[in-house]
C-alpha cells in the first residue's frame, strides 16, 4: 500500500526560550515491507545536528534551534510503500541482542496483577502462541479509552484502572512478556486509521516480542492484530520514553505547550517513482 504521512508537532512557549535541543526517531525503519518513496523532516529555524543508526537499527537525528523563539514546528512529510509482513520484522539490521530487552523499566515493571496475565502460558512450548495470548488478554484487561491515562502512567496503573491508550497497552504486553522470559520492546510509528477510526491513533505505538527462530514480531493490542501494511514502523526502545519519536528540551523559563496533528492516507494511485 502507498501511504502518505503528514505529521506536524508545534511547540509553544509562553516566554521566548533561548534554544531548543531535540533528538528524533522519525525515519521509517529499513526493513522488508517498508520502501521509502520520499521522506522529509524539518524543524523551523532548526540546525540539523549529528545523526547515526543505533544498535536497534533506528536512525537517530539531533536538531538544535537557536533562540530566542516562542514557537517551533517539527514537520514530517513523506510517502512510503508498505507490504503486509504479518507482523514479522524482516530484513531489519540490528546489533542489540534480544536479551537486552528482558530488562524491565519503571513503566514496564510487572506487578502481581500483570504477572497474573501470564497464568497458564507456556512460552517454552510455543512462544508465538503465548505472545498472541498476552496481546489478547491485555486488550481485554485494558480497554482502549482516550484521556484516562497520561504519558507517565505505568502498565501496572493502567491495568489497575482497566483503561488506557495504545501506549499503556503496549507497556502491559511488554511487562507480561518479559515476566515469562520473552524479550519485548516498545515500537512507535504511524497507522492508517479508517474513516471511523480515532484520529489520535494515527501516531501509534505497539509492542514487539522476540520469538526464537522467527525474530521480532509485532503485536498491536489496541487493534487486536499484528501490524500489517497499514503500519509504518519508526523506532523502538525498552519503553515509550526510549522509543519516543521526539525527545526535546528547551533552555529557558518558558512553559511549553504542544499541539500534534497526524494524517496518514492511502494514496489511490500507485507511485510512479521507481526507487
Amino acid at each position: 500500500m502507498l501511504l502518505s504521512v503528514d505529521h506536524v508537532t508545534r511547540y509553544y512557549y509562553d516566554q521566548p526560550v533561548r534554544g531548543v535541543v531535540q533528538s528524533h526517531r522519525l525515519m521509517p525503519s529499513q526493513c522488508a515491507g517498508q520502501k521509502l518513496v520520499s521522506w522529509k523532516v524539518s524543524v523551523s529555524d532548526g540546525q540539523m545536528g549529528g545523526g547515526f543508526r543505533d544498535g536497534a537499527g533506528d536512525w537517530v537525528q539531533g536538531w538544535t534551534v537557536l533562540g530566542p523563539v516562542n514557537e517551533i514546528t517539527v514537520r514530517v512529510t513523506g510517502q512510503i510503500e508498505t507490504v503486509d509482513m504479518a507482523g514479522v520484522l524482516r530484513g531489519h539490521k540490528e546489533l542489540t541482542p534480544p536479551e537486552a530487552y528482558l530488562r524491565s523499566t519503571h513503566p514496564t515493571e510487572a506487578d502481581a496483577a500483570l504477572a497474573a496475565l501470564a497464568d497458564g502460558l507456556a512460552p517454552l512450548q510455543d512462544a508465538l502462541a503465548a505472545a498472541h495470548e498476552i496481546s489478547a488478554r491485555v486488550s481485554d484487561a485494558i480497554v482502549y479509552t482516550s484521556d484516562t491515562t497520561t504519558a507517565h502512567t505505568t502498565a501496572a496503573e493502567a491495568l489497575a484502572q482497566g483503561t488506557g491508550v495504545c501506549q499503556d497497552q503496549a507497556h502491559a504486553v511488554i511487562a507480561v512478556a518479559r515476566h515469562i522470559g520473552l524479550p519485548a520492546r516498545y515500537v512507535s510509528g504511524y497507522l492508517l486509521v479508517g474513516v471511523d477510526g480515532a484520529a489520535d491513533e494515527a501516531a501509534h505505538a505497539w509492542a514487539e516480542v522476540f520469538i526464537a527462530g522467527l525474530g521480532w514480531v509485532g503485536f498491536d493490542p489496541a487493534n487486536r492484530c499484528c501490524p500489517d501494511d497499514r503500519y509504518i514502523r519508526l523506532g523502538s526502545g525498552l519503553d515509550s520514553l526510549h522509543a519516543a519519536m521526539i525527545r526535546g528540551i528547551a533552555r529557558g523559563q518558558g512553559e511549553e505547550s504542544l499541539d500534534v496533528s497526524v494524517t496518514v492516507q492511502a494514496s489511490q494511485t500507485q507511485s510512479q517513482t521507481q526507487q
Partner: protein
Amino acid sequence: MTSYFNEMYQGSAVRAPYARLQDWMTSMPAELRQMKQAEAEALFRRIGITFAVYGEGGDPDRLIPFDMFPRVFSGAEWAKLERGIKQRARALNAFLVDVYGRGEIVRAGRIPGRLVYLNEAYEKSVVGFVPPKGVYSHIVGIDLVRTGPDEFFVLEDNCRTPSGVSYMLENREIMMRMFPDLFRENRIEPVDSYPEILRRTLASVAPAKCDRDPTVVILTPGHFNSAYYEHSFLADLMGVELVEGQDLFVEGEFVFMRTTEGPRRVDVIYRRLDDAYIDPLCFRPDSMLGIPGLMDVYRSGGVSICSAPGAGVADDKAVYTYVPEMIRFYLGEEPILKNVPTWQCGKADDCKYVLSNLKDLVVKEVHGSGGYGMLVGPKASAEQVEQFRARITANPHNYIAQPTLALSTTPTFVAEGIAPRHVDLRPYCLVGERIELVPGGLTRVALTEGSLVVNSSQGGGVKDTWVLAE
C-alpha cells in the same frame, strides 16, 4: 592464627626496598614525629583536600588521616604489577568493545549473556558505536591487595571514574616537602607526570570530526559533589577548564563551552558524572546536571566522552569473576594478576557453601561500595553472622563471598609508636592511544589494629606509595 606478610620485615631482617627507611624510622625522635604529623595535617588542611574518597560519603569536611610511613615497592615488584595491570586494562576495554558490538565472548559461551545484557550498567544506547581508538575506559583504577612476596590479588576493577588520584599526588607532594632528605637518599620514581599523561591520553581519543588540537574539559556535577576537590585539582594541573553541565551546550553537530570570549568548541569531555545524568534526552529526563543532546553529538563523532557511556558493565562485581576469562579470550594470555576466588550466592551450590562457611568469608553486596554492607566473617560477632545469613537467604543474588585475604602490612605510625597495619593499593592505568601507568598509586591503610577494612569511612587512612628506580 593467620600470618600476614609484612612488607618491611622478613623475620627480623629488613626487606631490601625498605632498607633505607629503617634508619629514618629508628632515628626519628617521638617529638619530631609528632611535630611532623601535625605539620602534615596542617598542610592537608591548607590544601583543602578532605575526606571523601571513592564516593564513600561521610563527612566531606573531615580530613582523611595521612600516615607518613611510605609504602615501598622495588622496581622488579612494580614491573610485574605494571604488566598485570596493563594486561587487565586492555582486556576490560576489549570486552567493552565486544559486548557493544558482536558480543563474541557471549556467543562463545565464555560469559553468560544475561550477566552482561541484563546488567543495569549495560547501555543499549551505545550498541554499535565504537569510541575513538576503541577505548571505553580511559582511566582504569584497579584495587589490589598483597598476600605474600610475590602474591597479588585484584579485589575489583573501576572502569568508570575512579577517584582518589589526587591523594596519590598530594601524598607525594607533602612527603617531599616534609622529608626532602628521604627523596635524596632513595631513588624514587616520580608520579607528578600523571596530570600531563592524563591530558595526553584524553587528547589522543579526540573524536572523528576533530581536525585540530583538541579542547579537553572536565565535567563535574558541581561543588557539592564529594570529589569536587579532585575535579578542580586535576583541571588545574592539566591546564583545562572545569565545567558544569550548564556551561556546555549542543549546537548543530558539536558541543560548545560558554566562555567570556564567546562559545568555544569542546572535543573531549572527561566527565565525573554517572551515565544516567549526562544527557536528559538519552538517559534520565529529569537530570539537570547534564547536557541535552550530548549523546547524539557523541554517537555521531562530534565529541568524545571519557569514560565512554556504558563502561560500567565491565566493573560489575558479578562480571569481575570473568575478567581472567576475558584476558584469555581477547589477548590469548594467562592472567598475570590473580582474581580473588568468588562465590556467587545467586548460584545454589555457591550459596550453600557460603552459608556453611560464613565465619571464614568476606561477604559483599553485588552493587555495594565503600565497605558498607559487608561482613568480615572472622572479625564478626555471632549476631552479625546470623544477620547476614538471613539477608543472604532472603536475597541471594545480591551477595558474593570471598575468602578472607591475609592483607599485607606495612609499618605505620600509631599512638604507641610504629606498628604493622593492613594496606591495599589502587593504581591508575591510563588508556588512550597508548597504555600508561605512573609508578605509584594510592595506598590505603586500615589504621585500627587488626582491621582489614581500609575504607576511609571505616577508619582507613592513606600513605605515599613509592616505586624504587632500579
